[in-house]
């Protein structure tokens, strides 16, 4: 699957001028509120008709203003999962699920109802009305409904945004399975770093209606020059790691990545399983010498690769730890006191309990796809 988007559209005083391409896997349209993410998805779906531009899926034009071509939404064969679910209140869950399937026609029907019901765990809900579902259940039904319309591409507009943390945690594994098992490419709108860090194979970073950067998730997340856009509080690298063993006595799990050994509170994963770990820059501490008598369990040796100081008191640093990037946010005072300059050897300290478990997710086959065609940078 390939998706090409190149559009210009004015919405009031806001100018949307975005151009990007995406391959398979999960492509995250990532950026702050008002960056134009939802507008782009609506253009792809045909709910907004832009002033100018083209949208191509697998080379087929859904929109091409230069040729006066505009395919209406019902002929685009795209699935759309809206932020608020938008289930039909007058139909049962089963009827909702089968709605798009009816229009897909017998020839294009992909997965059967049973498969989708299994994938999303909807078995017990089939005869209920949408009003009797929880927020997370509604979103799962909405995802199933979109999947059953046999779409070429699944558009998801902040499908977790209206849910509380517990519901988000409950739904994310389903989206991972969708990415890895359903083989439908996904365009996923989000402003949440943990979601994107966990789910995205490719990131298209948007800022004020324009594409600021695009590339494989790990590559974009390690760029400290993009921190102002990825959101300083949550920004940080994606580490691809393998589960080494579990220490049942202390309830710890060890992971191995290129940078070294990571330990974190026991997680539910099999030994040998590949995981992605999101390490927030603000949770990383630096030391010039190997620290003794320190509580932090994760100490990675590396060298300073890049320092970015703004005008404020905070400085962003990217380290190279045996070929694996780790980012850190320090005060300018500390950077000067330690005499940190590019090339200086340092040790990165990360508290085990600070590791972001929300964004800890499976790597997924889709992790191998990307805009630039190479997301394997983190693999040994």
């Amino acid at each position, binding site marked *: 699957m390939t998706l090409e988007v190149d559009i210009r559209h004015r919405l009031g005083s806001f100018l949307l001028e975005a151009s990007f391409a995406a391959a398979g896997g999960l492509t995250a349209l990532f950026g702050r509120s008002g960056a134009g993410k939802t507008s782009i998805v609506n253009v792809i*779906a*045909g*709910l907004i008709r832009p002033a100018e531009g083209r949208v191509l899926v697998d080379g087929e034009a859904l929109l091409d203003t230069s040729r006066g071509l505009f395919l*209406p*939404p*019902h*002929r*685009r*064969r*795209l*699935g*759309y999962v*809206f932020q*608020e679910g*938008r289930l*039909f*209140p*007058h139909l049962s869950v089963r009827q909702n699920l089968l*709605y*798009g399937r*009816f*229009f*897909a026609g017998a020839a294009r029907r992909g997965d059967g109802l049973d498969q989708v019901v299994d994938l999303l765990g909807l078995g017990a809900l089939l005869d209920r*009305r*949408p*009003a*009797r579902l929880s927020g997370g259940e509604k979103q799962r039904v909405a995802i199933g*409904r*979109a999947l059953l*319309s046999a779409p070429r591409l699944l558009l998801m507009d902040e499908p977790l945004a209206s849910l509380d943390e517990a519901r988000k945690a409950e739904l994310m594994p389903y989206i991972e399975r969708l990415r890895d098992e359903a083989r439908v490419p996904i365009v996923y709108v989000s402003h949440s770093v943990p979601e994107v860090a966990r789910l995205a194979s490719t990131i298209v970073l948007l800022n004020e209606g324009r594409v600021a950067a695009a590339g494989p998730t790990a590559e974009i997340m390690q760029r400290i020059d993009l921190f102002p856009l990825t959101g300083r509080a949550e920004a940080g690298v994606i580490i691809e790691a393998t589960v080494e063993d579990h220490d049942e006595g202390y309830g710890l799990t060890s992971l191995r990545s290129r940078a070294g050994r990571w330990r974190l509170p026991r997680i539910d994963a099999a030994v040998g399983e590949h995981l992605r770990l999101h390490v927030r820059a603000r949770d990383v501490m630096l030391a010039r010498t190997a620290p003794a008598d320190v509580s932090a369990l994760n100490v990675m040796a590396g060298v300073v690769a890049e320092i970015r100081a703004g005008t404020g008191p905070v400085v962003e640093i990217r380290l190279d730890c045996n070929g694996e990037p780790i980012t850190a946010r320090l005060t300018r005072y500390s950077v000067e006191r330690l005499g940190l300059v590019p090339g200086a050897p340092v040790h990165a300290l990360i508290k085990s309990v600070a590791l972001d478990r929300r964004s800890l997710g499976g790597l997924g086959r889709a992790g191998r796809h990307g805009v630039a065609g190479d997301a394997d940078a983190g693999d040994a």
Partner: protein
Amino acid sequence: MEWMVLSPEEWTAVRLSLKVAAAATVVGLPFGLAVAWALARGRFWGLSLLNGLVLMPLILPPVVTGYLLLILFGRRGPIGSFLAEHLGIVFSFRWTGAALACGVMGFPLMVRAMRLSIEAVDTRLEEAASTLGANRAWVFATVTLPLTVPGIVTGLILGFAKAMGEFGATITFVSNIPGETQTLPSAIYTFTQVPGGDAGALRLTLVSIAVSMLALFASELMARRASRRLDVE
């Protein structure tokens, strides 16, 4: 209790009224729905003109509406003569004319109820349906229409109740012919005009009250059932 029994003539008036009101609402339904749709969703020149035209019978004296119908739909009227000649539909001094008058008088109420419920339909659900492959006709049939049902039911009942009670426009347009155009209100009016007609007027009044109460009760019941099915969140 002898006085409670309806005479054959009175029965005729009751039956005729039910027939006229039913015809007025059933035939009016598609027109009402189309106009309600246009008013709720339409973006065209003349929208406010259409709105004014639909509301007219509510504001004009019924006699004026009846007289306008007589001019337009009478045997020599421009529309009446056309319909009589090409479709064989004659309104003047027929029960069909009474139904037309009742339908026109009830039309604004019917349209208003339907329009409000179409406006209340969440257009985002219609968008969702279109992304799932439904074209405009399917979206209307499978999403908009079912969600509008409570308003349609209310509109039908209001239209029916209005048709049962319509007097001024009917008597002006098609007169007061027993068995043909003499509906309940016309019959009651006739009773009040003759000596000793009090008992008949009272009997028909009671029938009129009973029918209205039944209609109201039915509309409550159906509206409640419809809203329970939709489960307002």
